[in-house]
């Protein structure tokens, strides 16, 4: 019998630590598939964030470094510039890591047109530390540090990273996708592939924002969390490509 669905070769045979229903696992797999498809396993270096995905190094057969909270793009810059140009460097970051404490680093990497790829997982809260407000938390959304719901007067507006990134001349590609159904997953996979291919072709900085869920910290069922991504997050954060195409 011919198997039709295998673990990507660039991934370890290992059960992840992520909570049941969390989308980090799907996104990991998409990266694994793209790396296999582009044949870059032996040339790719990953830069892990601080967040739930701090353990990402355990799931890939890739070199990885775990950098301080928010500083992955700076570390990736150091790696990329130290190695022969055929090496592929990517960061994998959450919304606290990338859009809050690490905003300066991501913006400057983008503006320099740093030839790296950033995979940005937006789950509208801080997962690792127990569900606090993130820059991407929706208006009215209750978190452990916005117990009365996010208010404009206190925390301002949800932060739009994919749109922001599209404004920098150094950015080759910026888009926002979701991974809660097969159709969305296919588009997200295509975007991730573009973001890696751009780097191989030396086109400059590429970022893919992925809307994700966090059922445990949102305190909802997995199916309700998907509904929230679809109905609430997508209303605030429209999907699409904001800069660069195929």
């Amino acid at each position: 019998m011919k198997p039709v669905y295998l673990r990507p070769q660039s991934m370890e045979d290992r059960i992840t630590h992520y909570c049941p229903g969390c989308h980090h696992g799907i996104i990991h797999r998409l990266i694994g598939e793209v790396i296999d498809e582009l044949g870059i396993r032996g040339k790719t270096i990953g830069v892990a964030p601080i967040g739930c995905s701090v353990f990402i190094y355990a799931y890939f057969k890739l070199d990885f470094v775990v950098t301080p909270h928010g500083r992955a793009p700076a570390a990736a810059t150091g790696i990329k510039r130290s190695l022969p140009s055929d090496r592929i460097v990517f960061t994998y970051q959450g919304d606290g890591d990338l859009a809050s404490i690490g905003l300066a680093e991501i913006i400057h990497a983008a503006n320099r047109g740093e030839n790296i790829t950033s995979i940005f997982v937006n789950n509208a809260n801080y997962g690792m530390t127990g569900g606090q407000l993130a820059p991407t938390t929706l208006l009215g959304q209750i978190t452990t540090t916005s117990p009365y719901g996010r208010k404009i007067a206190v925390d301002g507006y949800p932060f739009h990273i994919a749109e922001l990134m599209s404004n920098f001349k150094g950015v080759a590609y910026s888009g926002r996708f979701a991974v809660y159904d097969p159709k969305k997953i296919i588009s997200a996979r295509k975007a991730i592939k573009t973001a890696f291919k751009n780097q191989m072709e030396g086109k400059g900085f590429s970022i893919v924002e992925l809307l994700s869920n966090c059922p445990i910290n949102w305190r909802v069922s997995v199916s309700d969390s998907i509904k929230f991504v679809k109905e609430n997050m997508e209303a605030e954060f429209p999907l699409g490509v904001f800069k660069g195409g195929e």
Partner: protein
Amino acid sequence: MGEKVLIKGVEAIAESAIRAGCRMFFGYPITPQNETPEYMSRRLPQVEGIFLQAESEIAAINMVMGASAAGARVMTTTSSPGFSLMMEGMSYLVGMELPCVVANVVRGGPGLGNIAPAQSDYFQATKGGGHGDYKTIVFGPSTVQELVELTYHSFDLADKYRNPVVLLTDGALGQMMEPVIFPEMRKLNTLPEKPWALTGALNREKNIIMSFEMDPKILENINWELQKKFQKISEDEVKYEEYATDDAEFVIVAYGTIGRIAKSTVKALREENIPVGLIRPISLWPFPYGVITQLVPQVEAFMVVEMSAGQMVEDVRLAVGDRRPVFFYGRPGGMVPSPRDITEKVKQCLSMLLS
């Protein structure tokens, strides 16, 4: 008032700060102190205070700087990696002579380390931590009640000396619940006046707050003035607990979580008629050198116990000199020694002394 409540250390810090008149809090999430900002985010709006989650610890400490310059009682809390990010701001705060209270719920390090209890930020907290010649007052509480009292006291000391005060604790005390009695809610109109604060130069000379002076001669004088203040603090603000030291021939020195664990060791050894005592420093800076030095003639040896590879032991050695042996027992990386572990170490040291 007077009613005892059962509360976690990290929540007790928050409530006690509010009682002390703190109405401004800026912080960034990090385990194991998330309950402090979470508590503040619920409580401060109820007392017309402001809670704001900063975009990073760098931002948080600079927001603290702003609020303090404006005259507010203000606080931030964090854990080791975040405390490191705050060091630049702390240096500025001291240079600007701005009061604030910062709690560091220390976790295992170096780097990301882990979230288990540790005491490995002792040097960083007590010897300055950031750049320049500076000191912050540092307290190492060992019970939740003491944490409450020291938090409350810290705000007064910060204002008195116009200097940051650091509460150095760990997740063990932070996550533990104990019965406490909170102090009365401080009436805001009884807080000290701050004529130096930036409130708008209406009908008065303008106020400038900065840590900057281009002329080395003048900056040197400013530094000596700061040192005089630190000297005064060293004379007036030392705090420690002495336990069973009267007739002690062997003295353990330990603070914070280990301070209380070591107390159980002393109790156990006393039951075996072994004359052991405990010095538990409460102010880590200023360090209680004096009481240790005074014990030297009476004591055969000292032992320092820490959840680190050995930091406070250097201060104890300064106090003892080479007149008596100073043993060290430490567990770095988030390990917490038990009373039995410490008891065994004491016995080992005692037999070494005999042989």
